[in-house]
């Protein structure tokens, strides 16, 4: 079963002669339980593709099916539900909410899902334990190192137990030790059956994936 089906997707910025193609017709698919790496140089459109897959952005043309459902047919509320339940997104720049404890950050998707506070806290603590940050739960993001912040972000992406985990250069801002920690967490998650798509431009990161998609100037090569 295909989790992601992308069919001839384009994404353009600007109009007329100034039109820039970020994606110039991308067709690909990802099966359940796969671990896929997207590689490409800066400006190749890999982040744009990732944002479309994560339902954070919409394509200019083409269709995107998530679990067989055409995303363009979903309304605002349904999209919020998809982002909340189906997808866990890890950003390169962590995107934790400032001045809010690690625990509260991880609890956030559960709160939007309507999970009761007590259960929410238990599940958030479990997710933090999974990334090895159980003892840092009450720390604010600015009291954590980059690697720790990224692990909080991964815990936040995991806490709703989404089938699909998307990671946009999760190790891009991290040192080698943090990188290997993050990668082993992702390996374990994949071993548990999660579908993982990650962006990277480092070959040894891509080596963890089953399959690598190379992007160049908005096309798969």
């Amino acid at each position, binding site marked *: 079963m295909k989790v992601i089906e992308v069919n001839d997707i384009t994404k353009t910025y600007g109009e007329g002669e100034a039109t820039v193609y970020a994606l110039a017709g991308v067709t690909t698919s990802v099966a359940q339980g796969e671990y896929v790496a997207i590689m490409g140089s800066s400006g190749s459109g890999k982040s744009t593709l990732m*944002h479309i897959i*994560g*339902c*954070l*952005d*919409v394509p200019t043309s083409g269709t995107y099916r998530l679990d067989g459902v055409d995303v363009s047919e979903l309304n*605002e*509320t349904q999209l*919020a*539900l*998809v*982002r*909340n*339940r189906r997808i866990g*997104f890890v*950003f390169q720049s962590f*995107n*934790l*909410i*400032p*001045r*809010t404890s690690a625990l*509260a950050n991880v609890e*956030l*998707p559960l*709160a*939007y*899902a*309507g999970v009761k*506070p007590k259960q929410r806290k238990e599940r958030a603590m479990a997710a933090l334990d999974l990334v090895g940050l159980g003892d840092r739960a009450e720390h604010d993001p600015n009291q954590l190192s980059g690697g720790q912040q990224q692990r909080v972000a991964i815990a*936040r992406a995991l806490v*709703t137990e989404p089938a699909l985990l998307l990671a946009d250069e999760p190790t891009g801002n991290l040192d080698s030790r943090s990188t290997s920690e993050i990668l082993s967490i992702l390996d374990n998650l994949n071993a548990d059956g999660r579908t993982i798509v990650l962006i990277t431009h480092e070959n040894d990161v891509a080596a963890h994936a089953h399959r690598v998609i190379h992007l160049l100037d908005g096309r798969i090569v």
Partner: protein
Amino acid sequence: MSLWEVFKFALRGVGANKLRSGLTMLGILIGVGAVILLVAVGNGSAKAVEKSLQALGTNTLTVQGGRTANARTGYSTDLTLDVAEALKAAPDVKSVSPVVQSSQTLTYEGTEHSVQQVIGTYPSYFEASNSVVETGSAFAPEDVDQASRVIVLGSTTATELFPETDPIGKQVGVGGQIFTVVGVLKAKGSIGLANPDDVAIAPLSAVQRALTGYGPINSILIEAISADAVNVAQAEVTAILNERMHVTNTASAPYTIRNASQLLETRTATAETFTVLLGAVAAISLLVGGIGITNIMMVTVTERTREIGIRKALGAPRRVILTQFLIEATLLSLIGGGLGVAAALLGANFKIVGIQPVVVPSSIALALGVSVAIGLFFGSYPASRAAALRPIDALRYE
């Protein structure tokens, strides 16, 4: 997600940046407080003018003698006791008090005090001029008949001459003549330049005999039977005076009549103008305060566009984000506004540039209403704009 949960989110949002929340509330506090206090000061000064004028008596007329250059009638135009007696015939006049006035130095055991108004008059003057005898008593009509050397002192005069002793029964020198103090007036409070408490009042005949001589009298204080009858009384008095003095051209009459209620009306009108002016200033402060609130709310929420993007990426429904920011804006506006009202009410207990502010309740409603409405709108509008963005656009916002 229940409303209570969203409310807790909002509380956390307000608490997450205490400095920013504090400054926002301070802005609203100052906006609301300034408007309420400004209107209260204007209102207070208007009330003060009204009160002090009412203390002077509103149902009196003052006839002042004096010849204008063109008023050559061939008849005596001085105000005399005969003229004053004739005015008693007017039906709407309650009392007539002729007044002679001179400036004298009062002495008591080496203490000297110069009094601008040493007044010789009838006992009816006390009631007509709202002068209440606090200690001792006023002089009686018999004292006027017998030209008794008795005197009633104003409160300022009394404290100047008798800082420590009781003045009643003491003998004071007035321009070299000895008078016995029989009473002290209750303080009226100062209005403007003249101090109405720095006076000395004695029987007309005694003052004429001892100090001024038997020339024309300076003025006549007339009390009408009621405040409503003042204008009728003025017409009657004018008719009598014109007849006695053979005035043909009323435009150049050899006397002037001052009407206390007219004076009051003029002063009240002035005070009202003052209030309107202050109201305009308050409206401008409200506008400026409102722009300040707009500014700080816009900046505060726009700054959090990225946070809204993160929340959307995590699957927050738009409604939940909007509710959270609306509650945050409500909390900031209401707490800030409430503190502003409290500060204004507290500040209104103190005198500001000599004026006791009197808070106008409608100004509280107006200032609070406008500020909270502005705070709510400009707190929730940028949030709704940000929540309507695609998550990626909100996340990219710098």
